[in-house]
């Protein structure tokens, strides 16, 4: 134990000059603290409350979105959290989404979404959802390939109708004479 008594030599006393210097520094810091504005606790609480309200609202608003919608990333971001409680939700969502967009997307996108939906459905092994996907796929196969309108060309020949106003009528080189009135877009001129 005598060896350890040597540790006493590390014991130091702080002199009066240093004490005065330290106390001056502390007093200066205290007066700075008094002048500094107190943290706005109310503002912090209100911000926290707003954020707490905003998050579930955004999640709720994103509930019925489909790929391409503004809030769709919010929906997919929340899904891992929700999946902890309910894995079936993700699978059901994928099938619902595919049903909504199946007639609006090209074959490649459809296949990709179908693959994703099947993977989710296989995870929970739900026969009903699987049948809905089968039905969607069959309908798709039975439907003739869609003419997907690409972005309009830079210049449209003057003797052809504007691609933006295309209806279900197939494009033709002949002038269209009998255009059903319900397909006429306001502002269009029908030539005789």
């Amino acid at each position, binding site marked *: 134990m005598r060896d350890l008594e040597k*540790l*006493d030599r*590390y014991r*130091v*006393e702080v002199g009066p000059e240093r004490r005065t210097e*330290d106390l001056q*520094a*502390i007093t200066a810091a205290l007066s700075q603290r008094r002048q500094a504005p107190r943290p706005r606790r109310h503002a912090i609480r209100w911000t926290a409350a707003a954020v707490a309200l905003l998050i579930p609202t955004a999640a709720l608003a994103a509930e019925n979105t489909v790929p391409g919608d503004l809030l769709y990333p919010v929906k997919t971001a929340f899904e891992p959290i929700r999946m902890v409680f309910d894995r079936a939700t993700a699978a059901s969502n994928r099938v619902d989404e595919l049903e909504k967009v199946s007639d609006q997307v090209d074959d490649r996108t459809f296949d990709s979404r179908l693959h994703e939906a099947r993977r989710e459905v296989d995870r929970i092994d739900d026969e009903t959802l699987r049948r809905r996907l089968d039905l969607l796929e069959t309908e798709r196969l039975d439907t003739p390939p869609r003419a997907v309108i690409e972005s309009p060309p830079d210049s449209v020949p003057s003797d052809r109708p504007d691609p933006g106003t295309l209806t279900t009528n197939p494009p033709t080189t002949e002038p269209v004479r009998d255009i059903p009135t319900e397909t006429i877009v306001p502002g269009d001129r029908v030539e005789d």
Partner: protein
Amino acid sequence: MGSAEGVASSHPLDRWADGIRAGNDDAFAAVYHDTVGDLTSFAFGLLGSRGAAEDVVQDSFIELVRSSRGIRGEGRSIRVWLFRCVRFRSLDELRRRKLHAIPTDALPEIPHLDHQLDEIDSGLEEALNKLSDRHRTLLILHHVAGLSGQEVAEVMRSSRGAVYAAIARAERRLRQLMEETE
């Protein structure tokens, strides 16, 4: 070096706890005078330089001024908070020194400016330096700053039993190292 062991229900600094939270000058002065010796000794034991130790302690009090609104508990908690602050600041200082270390053979021989170090047994200093940071901290808190086992446990955020066992191991190791250096 009073090592009052029991977890006393009242602490000499208790009466200043509210004043510290409110930023009262007298409260800070009282806590400073009560703890500055122990804190500086602790920092000096870790850093081996009196000037650096005093700077670390001053910085810790400034930090206390900034953070005291959020410190909970009574006087004992404030004392433990200060020791923890000095500990982390000292470890930061040691890390900084290691980062900016210049090879000693590249430096000219200069006389030792810290007279206090001259009084310290070189064998003890060498043995202490060979200890791990944790063992050195434990020994200095207990034997130099005079903290009780319970207080050391609070500063190190460890259980009292684990701290006692670690202090015993650190003491054995220090003796062994001092024998080797003699």
